[in-house]
């Protein structure tokens, strides 16, 4: 029973409201639920993330920490009230023009906090902004752009908004394109700065009900009894389900290792493993009912460390399943060349044991899903904050025996993913069951804590790595043995185990390479795919060992990297086909621009400079499950008047900017301005399949599909124009809204006129395109497919740090990144991804770790115990594109979103060593570990 409701009157965005509210209702709930102003977001519910920030009597507050009934007489401003009369506030324009938003989920809170700041200080400097926005978390790491947008907001006072690039964001190299290569403003900018963008949890359907899922309280046990009768009896509860009520089959990501159940039937394997679920009229009722479900467990011995899990006699997490002997979920044993010979030839062999951490993606938007059962036709509609809606649909189809064509997946805007939203979850799966049981639309959401418990974060890796090097710096051999902590289920982990090995030889040439990888089951939440999938920790180990070897040989870290650097058109020792590659150029530019040689010698104790390199695939060469479907597909339709086109594609905008890049590619190929393109959001009915936003694949693969679709339309229109202009099709070109004779541009026709003619004579003008990676990528050995890609990115990152020698605190003062991402389509989104990757990498290197209590429960499943970087922690960043032309990419483009992260850890670790002589082999590099290292150093010298 709620306490007595109270009447409260306040104004929101100038409009007076008098409402009856329950005492426990927060201001955020009233704003979102009662007033329908869903621009105010919910990321944590406890004041840690700042996504729900509103102005309360002129002051920025987290509305989740304010009881609505205490707001009598208050003046409240939400993001919807910032623009006036259809005119954006200059601050909003500044955010758009600076590209100061990516997934957009934090953007309303950021803008409100910035508004409070500029109201009291109209000309804030960077320090003021950092002090004011430290409580607004942005996981995309857009901080450098936000700093510029807020300090420079006055520039946009009285300025009309357009899509033109800001001068400082113009592309790095000149190429002859009118749309591609230019930093046009993001397509989703205006919606994201005004709070209009709809995320899954913002969806309101008539008669919607709410589901919640109960997690196990023990890390390993057998379910002896579940009694749901009390939960069922709660008024407002519509249904309660347990493991007996779900499809009696397993699911997962890779068909070879389906090992998860929607709800556990007899065994739970980690604290949080889903055991029952409730659907009720409201979320509160569902939550109350969950607490009344009685589950009796017979606790079993649990294991939380993969080094223990692999031993004989360890508790078996999937007993009786002969696929998983000794808790080994995935076993990789590769040997290319002859490492024994390689090490024998080496002049120096360096080796060390590295222990990684368990970073969590922590997107500010918690995962959510809405499911509606369309009774009339046995069809399903599923809205989900999924990065890979195609795989979601595939899994729902398989689990519920519904043809894929009868499932409509819609991906509203996604508030950050970084890998955590790339698979079907119990949210969608229980949602389907509930939608069928109740006949009503169902909203399913994870809380922040539930997000952490479901996890799918980065695998913690235990790495033994060894590198051999000859005197001249040539790598003669590399060997690693890695145990990956997979948690209780497979998730994307097979791929992770392969990536941890396959991506090591892509950066540096090596003939002799051995990798033994064992992905272990433990009684922890399942690890999954996270940005740079499997790569950052082995890359950290490698980059650190490279520096160590160089030091022993008296060589400069840059010299050894250049010596071994990958070149274009190379097949690696593990059979990966490197096409374009400007890695050496990234090294050369980094060395020059950072003043490396002087700084390496002259920096005082406590200050250091370090380098790390990395890269990634531009899309996986093969899909998760066997399929001959093209990986990306696109449909473009021209409007009847020829003045607009709509681009239908089911790629997922998760902040990376594909809804901007793809219209640019379409506009360029069609020969029309960027402003004429409508994006039709990801919807499996409106757009053809795209495998999704994972493995950094969208720019290259969806870009190629879009370009092909556009080319098909252009071919039709050039034919029309050729007749009108009386010339040969082959002499015509299209650009900026005109079709013209290439040699005589003054002989031209309006593009829209050609399109109207085409429509008048032939009906709808459409074009389709599709993309499949080149066939037969990769070698013939087991697991050769993982790591294959049409193209690879390469980058060199350098950072300067200051280590406080008394506390061990590391200040990352400055970062430079030089990335070969092919030819850049949009400098704004490109640099935004790089900057964000640096900041996320900085968090992984220095701050982040999901910690486990002795009973297997999580110690810090929240954003005050699990610290991600804030704007105050963001270093100054210089990002430069070192362009190559990738023949397999659209307009020469490759990936950037993931490859920018792996170099960061090594760059920081190497800089810390340069600053203070302490090597940290166990991530994260905490001040405490550094101080311990410094003490040891002192003891050794005294």
């Amino acid at each position, binding site marked *: 029973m709620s306490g007595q409701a109270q009447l409260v009157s306040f104004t929101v965005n100038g409009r007076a409201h008098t409402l009856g509210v329950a005492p426990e209702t927060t201001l955020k709930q009233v704003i979102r639920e009662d007033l329908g102003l869903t621009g105010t977001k919910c990321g944590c519910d406890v004041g840690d993330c700042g996504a729900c920030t509103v102005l309360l009597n002129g002051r920025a507050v987290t509305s989740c*920490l304010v009881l609505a009934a205490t707001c009598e007489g208050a003046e409240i401003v939400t993001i919807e009230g910032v623009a006036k009369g259809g005119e954006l506030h200059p601050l909003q324009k500044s955010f758009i023009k600076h590209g100061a938003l990516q997934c957009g989920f934090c953007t309303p809170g950021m803008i409100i906090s910035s508004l409070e700041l500029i109201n009291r200080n109209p000309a804030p400097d960077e320090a003021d902004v950092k002090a004011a926005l430290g*409580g607004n978390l942005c996981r995309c790491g857009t901080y450098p752009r936000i700093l510029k947008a807020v300090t420079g907001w006055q520039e946009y006072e009285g300025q009309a908004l357009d899509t033109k690039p800001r001068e400082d964001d113009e592309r790095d190299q000149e190429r002859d394109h009118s749309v591609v290569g230019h930093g046009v403003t993001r397509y989703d900018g205006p919606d994201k700065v005004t709070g209009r963008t709809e995320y899954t949890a913002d969806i309101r359907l008539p008669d919607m009900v709410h589901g919640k899922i109960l997690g196990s309280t023990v890390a390993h046990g057998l379910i002896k009894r579940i009694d749901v009768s009390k939960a069922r009896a709660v008024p407002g509860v519509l249904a309660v389900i347990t493991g007996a009520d779900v499809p009696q089959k397993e699911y997962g990501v890779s068909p070879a290792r389906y090992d998860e159940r929607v709800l556990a039937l007899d065994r739970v394997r980690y604290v949080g493993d889903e055991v029952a679920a409730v659907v009720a009229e409201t979320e509160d009722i569902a939550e109350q009912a969950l607490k009344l479900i009685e589950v009796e467990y017979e606790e079993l011995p649990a294991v939380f460390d993969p080094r223990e899990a692999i031993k004989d006699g360890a508790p078996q997490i999937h007993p009786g399943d002969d696929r998983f002997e000794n808790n080994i979920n995935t076993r990789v044993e590769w040997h290319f060349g002859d490492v024994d010979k390689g090490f024998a030839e080496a002049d120096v062999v360096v080796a060390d044991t590295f222990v990684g951490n368990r970073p969590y993606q922590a997107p500010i938007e918690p995962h959510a899903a809405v499911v509606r059962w369309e009774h009339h036709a046995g069809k399903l509609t599923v809205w989900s904050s999924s990065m890979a809606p195609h795989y979601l649909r595939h899994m729902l189809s398989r689990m519920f025996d519904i043809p894929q064509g009868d499932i409509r997946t819609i991906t509203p805007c996604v508030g950050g993913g970084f890998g955590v939203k790339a698979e079907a979850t119990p949210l969608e799966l229980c949602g389907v069951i509930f939608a069928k049981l109740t006949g009503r639309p169902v909203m399913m959401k994870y809380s922040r804590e539930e997000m952490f418990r479901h996890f799918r974060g980065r695998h913690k890796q235990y790495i033994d790595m060894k590198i051999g090097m000859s005197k001249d710096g040539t790598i003669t051999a590399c060997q690693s043995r890695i145990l990956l902590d997979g948690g209780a289920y497979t998730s994307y982990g097979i791929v992770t185990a392969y990536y941890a090995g396959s991506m090591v030889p892509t950066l540096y040439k090596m003939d002799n390479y051995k990798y033994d990888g064992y992905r272990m089951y433990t009684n922890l939440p399942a690890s999954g795919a996270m940005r740079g999938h499997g790569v950052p920790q082995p890359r950290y180990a490698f980059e650190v060992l490279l520096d160590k070897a160089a030091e022993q040989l008296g060589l400069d870290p840059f010299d050894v990297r250049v010596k071994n650097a990958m070149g274009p058109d190379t097949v690696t020792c593990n059979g990966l086909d490197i096409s374009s590659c400007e890695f050496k150029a990234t090294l050369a530019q980094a060395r020059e621009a950072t003043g490396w040689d002087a700084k390496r010698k002259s920096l005082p104790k406590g200050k250091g400079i370090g380098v790390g390199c990395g890269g990634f695939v531009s899309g996986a060469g093969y899909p998760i499950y066997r399929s001959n479907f093209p990986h990306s597909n696109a449909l473009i339709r021209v409007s009847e008047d020829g003045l607009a086109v709509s681009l239908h594609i089911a790629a997922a905008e998760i902040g990376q900017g594909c809804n901007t890049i793809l219209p640019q590619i379409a506009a360029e190929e069609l020969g029309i301005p960027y402003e004429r393109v409508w994006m039709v959001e990801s919807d499996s009915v409106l757009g053809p399949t795209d495998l999704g936003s994972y493995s950094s694949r969208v720019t290259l693969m969806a870009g190629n599909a879009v370009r092909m679709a556009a080319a098909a339309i252009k071919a039709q229109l050039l034919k029309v124009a050729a007749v009108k202009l009386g010339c040969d099709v082959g002499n015509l070109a299209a650009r900026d809204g005109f079709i013209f004779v290439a040699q005589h541009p003054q002989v031209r026709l309006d593009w829209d006129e050609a399109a109207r003619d085409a429509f008048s004579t032939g009906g709808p003008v459409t074009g389709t395109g599709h993309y499949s990676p080149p066939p037969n990528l990769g070698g013939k050995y087991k697991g050769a497919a993982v790591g294959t890609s049409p193209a690879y990115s390469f980058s060199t990152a350098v950072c300067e740090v200051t280590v406080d020698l008394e506390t061990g605190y590391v200040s990352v003062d400055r970062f430079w990144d030089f990335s070969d991402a092919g030819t850049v389509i949009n400098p704004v989104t490109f640099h935004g991804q790089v900057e964000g990757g640096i900041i996320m990498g900085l968090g992984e290197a220095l701050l982040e770790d999901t910690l486990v209590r002795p009973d297997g429960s999580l*110690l810090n499943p929240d954003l005050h115990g699990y610290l991600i970087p804030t704007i105050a922690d963001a270093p100054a960043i210089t990002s430069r594109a070192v362009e190559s032309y990738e023949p397999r990419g659209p307009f020469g483009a490759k990936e950037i979103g993931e490859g920018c992260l792996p170099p960061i850890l090594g760059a920081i670790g190497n800089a810390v060593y340069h600053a203070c002589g302490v090597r940290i082999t166990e991530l994260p590099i905490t001040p405490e570990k550094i101080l311990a290292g410094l003490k040891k150093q002192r003891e050794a010298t005294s």
Partner: protein
Amino acid sequence: MSLGNFNLHHPATVAEACALGARFGRQAAYLAGGTELLVDLRSGRKSVAEVISLGSIPGLKGVRAIAGGIEIGATTPLAVIAESPLVIANFPALAEGIATMAGRQVRNLGTIGGNFSCGVPCSDTPPIVCVAGGRVALVAADGSEREVAAEKFVLAPRVTVLQPGEIVTAIRLPNQPAHSGASFQRFSLRRGSALAVASVVAWVRLEKKNIAEARIYMGAVGPVALAATQAAASLVGKPATAEAFAKAGDLAAAEAQPISDLRGSADYRRDIVAVLATRALTAAVQRAEGGDR
């Protein structure tokens, strides 16, 4: 998680607030900024039947000059305190300390009265008020008023001297003597919005280059804000030298009673206390010498 179910009261006066608190006893919680209470209710750490909001009591907000010092109303938001010219003039270390706390949105809500009343070991304002020689003004259910020295207010983690029906109405800071100065130093794992691993606030008064008086308090390294009495005593009558500060830092480290948790081990916290104490003393002396308190 929902906040649970409770009745919400909006007393208009201190007397009404106290009467409600006395009536409901342990069933009730007072609500000031909500930045602690709502988090506790949401996490299930706390569950109450009655919530008594102090937000609509007019006299509890604001900073004013009083005889011999300043008075900060209990429900004054932390951000308002940090911006108050009176506070900045009287005891700038308090404004500096507040600036390191949480995010701006939480500082706009959280109050100094709440920061004291919650009795959380890593709260940042209590050690600063302690070192300033501040006092906590309380009103009890029977209307009686009392003043408690700040260092006597928190008894144990989340336990204070407050009786049911008693509330904090103000924090009072005395005017500081000439040639005195204080500095608050805090160490956290991230720059924006993070709890302290440890904090130290030092206050000194100088007489002819020598330290005549010193006080040192430590936060997040004990069950309550701890006085480093031996460290402070070691400085009295001595010249303000780096050696003296370093020795005091070591003494403070020994006096700390830290625990190990996810933010750092007990040993590391002691190391940090020594560093912070040295830095706080150095800055406090500079401030005392500059005549800027």
